[in-house]
């Protein structure tokens, strides 16, 4: 019952609140009922910008789809009309940079990928600091419940100088999907350490049957988080306190060797050209024992029209490395363009987008990992979640041990390109230490330059 509440109109919900005879604030503390609180109108005037129109610039993804599907709800709540554009992430990122750089944006609200754009946007102050808006009682819904946002999410949304220029929406910790049927057939347990991953991959690799022990991205640029997943477990970092790259240290080389072994030795033929979709289709066919990637793929894996391994998928938390147990993490959120002339209505949109109901919907649709703690509490008592319980548990644990999977620097794309090429070369037989040394030497001046200006 409870999880269906937000599908009803605000008026009905308000009535429910009155019936309960409780203030909205107290309700927020009750698991599962949290979604109600955000939309209870109470004293807050959602309609103050009635009749205005804002432009929202989203990324084509399950999250973008989700927000777009419920835009009508925001329009009914506030009387603000939403014009939205949703394009693939590569193009969205390019268009955003070009528009911001021109000093005028066609959009008021923008979806941002923290692992790529955070530093660039923050350095240029392209997005509005929301702290003054948060402090303004007339503009901020008392039920926003800022404390509900997880630490990981807020770490993404906060710039080094303390500015909060977006509200987090979703984090994407990396996990290992494994094929239980293949594991059981050889009586192998899910690995509990890095050497055990390699060991399991070796035992399960069976080229004669077209089954590979391990699959992950080998395509340059896309492949970097696979390596950093290992790097973080080996206790490595990206950049030290003096701004010097730590990408050719012993930890980095060990991680690269592990990457090389897993992909070149126990990976499929041609893995150097694999992005997540090639890896996914192989895993869906039951042709790969393990697949390391972001957590957002439960939906296709459990879809009988796409997957041959429905019900046989294990969702494994990244095992502990020699130094630490870390799940490399991506993240996205929404911010307000500094050039927008409609900051008030845009702020209302941000509050709505990151509200408890929408956060819960992410889980419901298995579209990612929400940043609000209440969403997980609600999920535990809900019967309306399609995703397997094991997936949610895996996500909860992973979120707790998550660290950024890419360095928070402006030239992230160049970092990924240069180190991505090094990793692809390793799959084709190059020496990990030499490749990392070369890539580090090539990237250091680019990093120095970006931090200077």
């Amino acid at each position: 019952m409870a999880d269906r509440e937000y599908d009803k109109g605000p008026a009905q919900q308000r009535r429910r609140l009155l019936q309960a005879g409780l203030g909205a604030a107290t309700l927020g503390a009750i698991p599962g009922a949290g979604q109600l609180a955000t939309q209870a109108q109470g004293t807050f005037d959602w309609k103050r910008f009635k009749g205005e129109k804002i432009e929202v610039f989203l990324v084509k993804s399950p999250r973008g789809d989700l927000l777009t599907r419920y835009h009508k709800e925001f329009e009914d709540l506030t009387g603000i009309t939403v014009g939205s554009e949703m394009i693939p992430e590569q193009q969205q990122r390019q268009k955003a940079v070009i528009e911001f750089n021109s000093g005028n944006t066609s959009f008021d609200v923008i979806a941002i990928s923290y692992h790529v754009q955070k530093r660039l946007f923050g350095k240029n102050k392209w997005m509005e600091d929301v702290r003054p808006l948060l402090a303004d009682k007339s503009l901020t819904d008392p039920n926003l419940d800022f404390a509900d946002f997880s630490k990981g999410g807020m770490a993404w949304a906060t710039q080094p100088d303390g500015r909060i220029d977006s509200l987090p929406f979703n984090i994407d910790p990396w996990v290992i999907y494994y094929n239980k049927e293949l594991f059981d057939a050889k009586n192998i347990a899910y690995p509990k350490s890095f050497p055990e991953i390699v060991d399991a991959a070796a035992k399960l690799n069976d080229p004669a049957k077209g089954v590979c022990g391990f699959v992950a991205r080998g395509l340059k640029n896309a492949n970097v988080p696979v390596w950093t997943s290992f790097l973080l477990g080996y206790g490595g970092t990206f950049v030290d306190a003096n701004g010097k790259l730590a990408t050719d240290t012993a930890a980095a080389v060990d991680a690269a060797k592990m990457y090389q072994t897993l992909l070149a030795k126990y990976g499929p033929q041609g893995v150097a050209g694999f992005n997540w979709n090639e890896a996914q289709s192989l895993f869906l066919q039951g042709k790969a024992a393990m697949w390391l990637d972001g957590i957002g793929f439960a939906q296709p894996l459990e879809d009988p029209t796409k997957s041959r391994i429905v019900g046989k998928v294990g969702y494994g938390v990244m095992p502990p490395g020699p130094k630490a147990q870390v799940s490399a993490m991506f993240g996205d959120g929404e911010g307000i363009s500094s050039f927008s002339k409609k900051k008030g209505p845009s702020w209302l949109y941000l509050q709505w987008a990151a509200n408890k109901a929408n956060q819960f919907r992410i889980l419901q649709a298995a579209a990612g990992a929400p940043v609000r703690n209440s969403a997980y509490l609600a999920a535990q008592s809900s019967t309306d979640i399609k995703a397997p319980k094991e997936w949610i548990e895996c996500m909860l644990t992973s979120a707790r041990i998550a660290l950024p999977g890419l360095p928070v620097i402006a030239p992230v794309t160049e970092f990924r390109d240069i180190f991505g090429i090094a990793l692809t070369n390793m799959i084709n037989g190059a020496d990990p230490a030499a490749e990392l040394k070369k890539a580090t030497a090539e990237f250091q001046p680019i990093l120095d330059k970006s931090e200077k200006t």
Partner: protein
Amino acid sequence: MPAIVMPPARGARFLARRRRSYYLFIVPALVVVGAVIVFPWLFTLWMSAFDWTIGSTAHFVGLGNYQKLLGNQRFLESILHTFYFTALAVAVPLVLGTAAAMIFHREFPFRGVLRGIFVMPMMATPVAVALVWTMMFHPQQGVLNYLLSLVGLPPSLWVYSPTLVIPSLVLVEVWHWTPLVMLIVLGGLAALPTEPYESARLDGATEWQLFRYITLPLVAPFLVVAAVIRTIDALKTFDTIYVITGGGPGTASETINLYLYLQAFAFYNIGNASAVVVVFFVIVLVLALLLLHVREKTKWS
């Protein structure tokens, strides 16, 4: 123009006025060409003298960007990849296209229908073609390796292998653009006179001799036109490579265009990208002059 202001005689003055009124008519074209070609070109040249990344301030570096490009191994390799790709993607369709034209020039049943089928690849959108080939190249699930296995050959890595990637990409280009060469050459063949063939046959020439010493020299101007068009197309190929390999594996299929795209639209190094464009422009210019020179020569013979 002092000659216009101070005319020495009546006739000259009339001419001068006429000339002046002519100038007025070229103004629109001049404005358009200036705005869409000359200005962007000069602006690119100007930007190439700056060290400028979007999101940071620009510094004037003069020829610094060019100097860095000269020492940039990745860029120099991308030029080699471009030449390698272009050479194959021009030569192979020329040979196959000419052969196809010779076949379609003969009379045989259903010639019209078959010719229509043969030119169909040309009508397909490059990105769609590239996506379909990507699937066919897939090492596990692709149809190409299945076909190889049918005839008992070992599977190939196609675009996933650093050494095979460029020839594999050329395969796509060949499939896509051989029909164009065929059409051009076929047009040339249709215009050939029949007399030289008759007299050559009387002299006892073989079919090969007919082709080598009569047909080939006579269609040479058409072949050069086809070569020019193919060279331009091959040099600027972007969509096929970007969609299928993105320049990979590693940088094995990174042509100048892909390198340029990365610099400009992924790394936002506008200064460096502008310098790459200027270098690319010079390369295209030199190649174009070379081809024009060849064309003049074939005309003369």
